[in-house]
């Protein structure tokens, strides 16, 4: 417990979290501070590329761990299963209509890549190592949850669009999956010599870019919170705080079964406990258009994302350390 508190407060006073807080403050105070959309997207491309490439180089270095296939399969299963838990919880705790509940469930089965990126940097900062292939696991967890959600929606009377091939292509080839997996493979192929060439670009400035990116995330989350009045009932809010813990529990179990390193377990908890706000919302606008975007966006961006950033990440690192060490 003390460890968790120490880690949490150490985590709280990093430039990253403070930048996020600054963004939150600015948005809630309705400052006109904004990061241009193109710049924010540019930074996210940088972060995805960097984290994917570093993961690939790590795997190239330490050899292809035999457990990579098992880990990928575990990630896919988690992403399929978690929406059912989320849906059940939502039915228990809230009065959301079926379609909204299914849409929210999809977000929690999928992952937040920014949470993952931040967690990677925290894990590394605490001196832990994690399996390089965790970025591939992250990519594998993006999409399956969407199927579960559509199944839930049709099964319980909601109205889902047909999942046509076009929608599948869009989901599986969404920008962040392609970039993450692509950069991972490039890192895998080029290994250390490739790293030597571009290290000054993708390693040294990483944490600084992450700071500015989290500033923008704070702005976005804060704007989401401002729009949340009326949207979020107490039950929905409580779900947004409880579900990441439940998800992280799933991740912990899976990580232990897989026999991942301490850092790897922490990252899998973070993935399972995080909620998507890029790929899944866009898919939901197409596949479940009757679901209300303000609910799922506010929950995932305005409640769960900050919760994970400030409390979840340090907590899961501490738990993984306690369990693993």
């Amino acid at each position, binding site marked *: 417990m003390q460890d968790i508190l120490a880690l949490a407060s150490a985590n709280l006073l990093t430039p990253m979290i403070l930048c996020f807080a600054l963004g939150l403050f600015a948005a809630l105070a309705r400052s006109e501070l904004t990061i241009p959309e193109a710049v*924010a997207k540019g930074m996210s491309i940088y972060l995805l590329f960097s984290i994917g490439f570093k993961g690939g180089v790590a795997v190239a270095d330490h050899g292809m761990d035999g457990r990579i296939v098992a880990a990928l399969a575990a990630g896919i299963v988690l992403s399929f299963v978690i929406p059912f838990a989320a849906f059940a919880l939502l039915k228990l705790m809230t009065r959301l209509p079926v379609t909204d509940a299914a849409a929210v469930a999809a977000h929690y089965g999928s992952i937040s890549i920014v949470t993952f990126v931040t967690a990677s940097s925290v894990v590394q900062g605490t001196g832990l190592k994690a399996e390089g292939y965790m970025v591939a696991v992250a990519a594998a967890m993006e999409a399956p949850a969407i199927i579960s959600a559509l199944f839930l929606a049709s099964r319980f009377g909601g109205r889902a669009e047909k999942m046509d091939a076009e929608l599948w292509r869009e989901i599986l080839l969404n920008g962040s999956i392609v970039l993450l997996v692509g950069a991972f493979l490039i890192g895998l192929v080029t290994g250390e010599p490739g790293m030597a060439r571009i290290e000054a670009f993708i390693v040294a400035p990483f944490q600084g870019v992450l700071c500015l990116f989290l500033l923008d995330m704070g702005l*976005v989350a804060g704007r989401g919170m401002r*729009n949340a009045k009326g949207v979020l009932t107490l039950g929905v809010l409580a779900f947004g705080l409880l579900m990441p813990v439940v998800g992280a529990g799933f991740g912990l179990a899976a990580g232990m079964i897989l026999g991942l390193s301490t850092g790897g377990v922490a990252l899998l908890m973070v993935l399972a406990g995080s909620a998507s706000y890029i790929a899944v*919302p866009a898919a939901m606008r197409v596949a479940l258009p009757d679901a209300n975007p303000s609910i799922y966006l506010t929950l995932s961006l305005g409640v769960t994302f900050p919760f994970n950033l400030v409390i979840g990440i340090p907590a899961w690192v501490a738990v993984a350390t306690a369990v693993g060490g």
Partner: protein
Amino acid sequence: MHKAKRVEIIIEAPMEGRLTQALEKAGVTGFTVLPVFGGSGRSGRWTREGQVGRSGMVAVVCLIRPERLDGLLEAAYAVVERHIGVIGVTDAEVLRAERF
């Protein structure tokens, strides 16, 4: 100068591809997609700045022969129906009628 209709559809960006495909199927010979900064409607106020991902909206403008209006509206409506957005139509005239 030839009589035409100017149709303006404000729609969510993730639906753009589906809308323009439907327009093309409806025999539209051209359209223009404009970025939108933000707006307000039944689903509340939003601004583009600081959106993540493929969110945001676009405006699709389409000049067509008057007799094609109904086909276009039908096709567009099928796509837009359950989505956030509006469709406005104005009378217009066009040069270069060979293009329509």
